[in-house]
């Protein structure tokens, strides 16, 4: 497992986070999200909720100005570049890398300090098995069904050992059945991995299912 300079065990702390555009404050937030807990951010489209995720992930467009601090277990992420934050993210689309096989999509996410080809591959295979996709490793990702793709995307982000998990309306494109199932799976795995989750949605039912704290942005 990753060895961090862990100074506490509080999970994600948002300390006086303010994001503004042309002097207009879009998001103002103080919050603590413990390990395995979820902070749901709700708001209409264009309200800045995805901007918050971009800020947390480290890819905020320079047109926005932001202040405040983001810490995970005492590690300050605010000044780190995106690739050193280990902020795993799931989008509306699964966005599997189309040129890699299903198993390589997962293997590429395994941290660099995990050495040995065989070892890495067996970890990826285990992740596939965990998603009931044991025999799908050599498949072309584009031939999977929507639900299968979503599961691969979830496993991909989990094997990278993120510090936090950012969800950018990842269920909004799934149909009702699959949506319920996938939602449960994602929150279940995040809890099991002890990940603080920030969940952005405009769907009230999503918000209810997530449990945890709720923060509204934009006009009510």
């Amino acid at each position, binding site marked *: 497992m990753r060895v961090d300079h862990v100074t506490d065990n509080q999970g994600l702390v948002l300390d006086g986070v303010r994001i503004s555009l042309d002097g207009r404050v879009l998001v103002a937030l103080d919050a603590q999200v413990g390990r395995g807990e979820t902070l749901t951010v709700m708001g209409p489209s264009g309200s800045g909720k995805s901007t918050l995720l971009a800020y947390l992930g480290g890819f905020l467009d320079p047109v926005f100005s932001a202040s405040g601090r983001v810490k995970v277990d005492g590690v300050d992420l605010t000044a780190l570049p995106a690739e050193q934050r280990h902020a795993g993210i799931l*989008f509306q689309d699964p966005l599997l890398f189309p040129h890699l096989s299903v198993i390589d999509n997962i293997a590429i996410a395994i941290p660099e300090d995990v050495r040995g080809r065989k070892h890495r591959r067996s970890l990826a295979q285990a992740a596939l098995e965990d998603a009931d996709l044991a025999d799908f490793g050599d498949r072309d990702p584009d031939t999977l069904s929507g639900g299968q793709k979503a599961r691969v995307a979830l496993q991909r982000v989990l094997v990278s050992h993120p510090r936090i998990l950012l969800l950018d309306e990842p269920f909004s494109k799934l149909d009702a059945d699959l949506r319920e199932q996938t939602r449960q799976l994602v929150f279940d795995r995040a809890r099991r991995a002890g990940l603080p989750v920030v969940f952005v949605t405009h769907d009230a039912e999503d918000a209810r299912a997530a449990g945890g704290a709720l923060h509204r942005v934009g006009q009510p």
Partner: protein
Amino acid sequence: MTGGVRLARLAPPLTLAILLGPLAFGLAGTALPALGYLPDLGGSDFTTQHFTELAEVPGIWRSSLLSIVIGLVTTLVSLGAVAGFVASDLGTSGFARMRRMISPLLSVPHAAAAFGLAFLIAPSGMIMRLVSPWLTGLDRPPDLLIINDPLALSMMAGLIVKEIPFLFLVTLAALPQTRHIETMRLGRSLGYGRVASFTFLLWPPVYRQIRLAVFAVVAYATSVVDVALILGPHLPPTLPVRLIDWMNDPDLEARFLASAGAILQLGVTLVALIAWVGLERAGGALAGLMRHNGRRWRRDMALRALARTVMGGSAAIVFGGIAVLALWSVSGLWQFPDALPSSFTWKSWMQALPRMSGPLGTTFSVALVSTLIALTLTILCLEREYETGRGRGGGALLLIYLPLIVPQISFMFGLQVLSIWLGIDASFPALVLAHLVFVLPYVFLSLSDPWRAHDRRHDLIAAGLGMSRTRTLVRIRLPMLSRAILTAAAVGFSVSVGQYLPTVLIGAGRLTTVTTEAVALAAGGNRRVIGVYAFMQTLLPFLAFAIAIGLPGLVFRNRRGLRV
């Protein structure tokens, strides 16, 4: 964000230096001798004498005017055909067919297309053979001046068939930025015909995007040398051809005149561009008038048929020309008016190949090296643009187009003077650099759109997985964009293969390519040898495109998400 690809920082300034350095130094190197300053030839005083001499050269104004007319007519006809075809056939199966033919059409070098056209339309050419003697009653070639005609009609035709695929390509690249399907439907639901819907609603935003490419066509057609040598008029020739004659004059004094002429060429191209802007205004006003009277122009079949004919005809001429070139290269005895040679032989190839190996090696290595440099710089520039979010403005685009809009001949003269002065003329690096000035813009233009269209969220996911920018670039972006990258490489390769003027001037006759050798054969008129060289000249870029199209399909044959 701090963790970018390190080398990418250097790429934008280096790219600008490669694009603008030769341009600036070249123009200076042309302007100084034009004003009498060239110490190596004893010119140390500034004078306007050479411009006075230039003004007194017989037929110089006719040559200049001819170049302007060629520039405007070529652009007007090719742009009209492309716009008419897109208007009338957007979304049809014919449109898709034409679209598939773009790459092979673009890959044919200008000189090869010009030779092909000459072999088709000459008095003893293929077309005359096909209709003789049963239709014309001729058993000897008619005594007609079809090629090299004084009005430059055949030269304009040769340029038009090659500019059409280029303008079609840039138009296709601009269309996705507009909501073209909805716009055309909207126009037609208001009762306008296809051509009217297109002209009133879709063309203005499309044209705004392709304007610089159109300027490049105007500039190219006013200053082209190789096509003019093959198809252009002789008495007097167009201005660029006269400049080359003076440049090659054994009397070195003629260099001053040539330099003054190259500055005149700059003016000629500028006048053509200003006239083109005037035509744009006039066209806009005319479209405005037609729009205001509210007529629907529903009966546009004749116009559509015309556009389709020119479009299809241009493709047929290029492909047909190449076929005739190939036929001549293996023909034995082939008398007029026989439609086919009476015997076939490899003799022309056998004789030409040993002599061709040197130029072939130069062609291949210069094209390969310049393309690789251009590709690396382009990818790093685009990566830098991605990291900083800057650099996609109109200013940057103009800088990239600048070497394509300033006439080649006006700054290549100066570069030659400079390269001789530095002692690097006829050296491989100098030739690569000269080609790079033209390869780089085309590689950049063909890669930037797919690069920018790439879904950024893939990069964000990779960053979230802890992958560095360099690793994301190598493992995610480059493989996902492999098709676009290889296509850009093929474009760069074929641009380099087709370069005539930079090769002649910087190669100084000692470094020759298949293209310079082929054009040099134009005056001789040996069709079999021309057939061999021109066919070879076509083959290299064609292979590059075949690899670009075939390789990703092979490597990613099991990856449906990467199919086009």
